[in-house]
């Protein structure tokens, strides 16, 4: 793994930890349910980030990353994904687009969950009020999509992204191979506004 990237990620995690420490200090002084739930969410997001970081590290090791591909129902899989409580934005509505969703898809549920959780965290930062997740079969590939209603990918942020998320999505996509074909991940502007994340798996 690129040492520069590793340093950026560790730095990012350090900052998140400092934020969490602040919240816990405040909680110790005055217990408050809402703040505790927020701290818990921040803690889970931090865990997720560390798992993502270590997965990325694993992918660049000599063993590489290997997908254990099996048949899953994308609907069940996405239901499990959005049921996850790390999405610390109660004001954003996350919905699943069931249109054209195949009954069965072939992928590694744990790895794809890591990728989509990272992409979802990213979408959460930009979304105004809604995020839509979908899955469809397109020209021989299984395509997971996450679309937000934010300003699109050119948007500036106060704390810019480390690139961990997209890097992670790319290595997970590539771990899904079929014959000569490999998966891919990309982030584009949706023609009707907002950003569109796609994870394409052969």
């Amino acid at each position: 793994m690129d040492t520069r990237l590793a340093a950026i990620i560790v730095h990012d995690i350090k900052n998140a930890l400092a934020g969490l420490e602040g919240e816990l200090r405040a909680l110790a002084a005055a217990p408050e349910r809402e703040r505790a739930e927020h701290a818990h969410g921040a803690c889970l997001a931090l865990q997720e980030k560390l798992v993502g970081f270590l997965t990325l590290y694993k992918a660049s090791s000599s063993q590489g990353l290997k997908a254990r591909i099996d048949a899953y129902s994308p609907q069940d899989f996405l239901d499990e994904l959005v049921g996850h409580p790390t999405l610390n934005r109660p004001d954003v509505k996350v919905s699943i687009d069931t249109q054209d969703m195949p009954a069965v898809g072939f992928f590694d549920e744990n790895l794809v969950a890591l990728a989509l959780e990272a992409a979802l965290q990213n979408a959460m930062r930009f979304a105004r009020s809604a995020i839509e997740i979908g899955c469809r079969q397109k020209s021989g590939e299984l395509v997971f999509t996450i679309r937000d209603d934010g300003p699109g990918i050119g948007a500036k942020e106060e704390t810019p992204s480390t690139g961990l998320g997209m890097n992670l999505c790319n290595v997970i996509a590539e771990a899904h191979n079929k014959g000569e074909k490999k998966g891919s991940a990309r982030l584009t502007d949706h023609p009707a506004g907002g950003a569109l994340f796609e994870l394409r798996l052969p």
Partner: protein
Amino acid sequence: MVIVSDSRFANLRSLLIEDLPLMRQNIRIQLGQLDIARVDQATTPDDAIRLVRSNSYDLIVCDYNLNKETNGLQLLEFFRSQNLLQPSAMFIMVTAENDYALVASTAEFQPDSYLLKPFTATKLQERIVRLLDKQSTLAPITERMQAKDLAGALAQCDRVLAIAPKRVMDVLKFKGKLLLELGNIEGARATYTQALNARDDLIWAQIGLAKCDVAIGELQKAKTTIQAVLVRNSQYIEAYDLLTQIARLQGNEEDALDALNRSSQIVPSARRNRMVGDAAYRIGNLEQAKIAFGKAVKSTKGSLTAQASDLLSLAQVHVDNGDADQALKLLSDVPRSFTSSSGFGITQAALQAQAHVQLGNFPAAEKAFIAAKNQSEGARADTATLALAKAAFSVGMEAEGAEILSQAVKADHENKNVVALARKVLKDTGNEEMADRIIDNAISHGSAIVAEAEALMRSARPDESLAKLEEALQSMPENTGLLMAASQLHLLWMSQKGMQRDYVERVNNYLEKLDTLLPGNERVAKMYRFLRETLVNVAKKS
């Protein structure tokens, strides 16, 4: 965090296997949040084995990293291969991202689900709900399979498919297996092809096609298919097992050993090493047998997964190798738990007798032989009896050895493994010329009884036919050939003369025994089918 508990959770009996106290407490709380009332906890593999032996669990959540000796997958392998888990038990393996890919892609015994650490109670809940849903959707198929009603299970496959299209791959897997077992090879082929049309790199479906070829005797074609699978996925253990099976069908034990060896390099489990050791010993490759049994003994030493047979096999290899001292040393230091396992004392003493002969200590040899003989409760078709026969020959009691060997073969005259090992005993003790007299005679003894019973049935003396077999089974209760013939002839009797309650019970007993003696055997499956058909036909007539 709001967790909506599922009413199905309250009745789940669950076991949590985790060595780290903090992690264990965490998962324990999470299971509690789901309203799972009963959560037993184990901190070591041995604890887990003790609990699983004395309880029956619906859900097991197990960490992959347990201790140096045994990891979660080895534990699962032990549970499954020893039939310690209920068929409906759900096994969730918890792994760190670091282990996940490697663990999941090489596992021979797959858990029902993998969960990456750390996880939330919600995630655990979703996973369990999904497993429960899957289980209840597939229950119409799996329940009939457990009841040996293969045709009924097959009929359910299409019904389940119609209501649960998302389970298509699970159902096709079952359907292919059922069609193969029912002998409908073309149907099985069509099923596997259907799965491959959905995704052409499904290994289980490719291996399924190879199994179809094996079933119709196209061994070379099957081999080509398997080799192609292994080029792309060298870790797929079932492929090596099918290669082993093909090599055996071709009578090529060397190739069978080679395939087993390759599989044990990928999954170096005690069970795999045991399989290699047995195969190597059968063809007289003592060097490989020694290494393989040595590994099996070493990797399970001090653990509840240790099996007495590994130590005995290794001792036998030492004796055959001329290392009598090493054999005696090994046999003198055995865990107390081994001494209660069936046939252990006999084999131990019989091997000691063989070793003492080698060292020229004849009084000790004779004493050990007598000790072995005194523990024997009659000859059986097992390794203990074969070791006893070998000891008799070693101490110079040829007539006694011949008699024991003959009884061992008679006890299950169609058991190819026992027959091969009995021949080996004669060869190893320099008595090869006795093979015709002892072994061939013992085999004909059994087949003559079957032939006679069949003749009686044909010549309209059905009651005498059944009596003949019942009598023979009194003295040879574990003879699979006799059990098979007895099942068949009892069913023939009923199809001619109508329902007879106690005969149905008898046949059920025979089949239950056969199922234990020959697990997963195709002929036994067929006999179950014959029983079912006979009962239906007889009921129609009356």
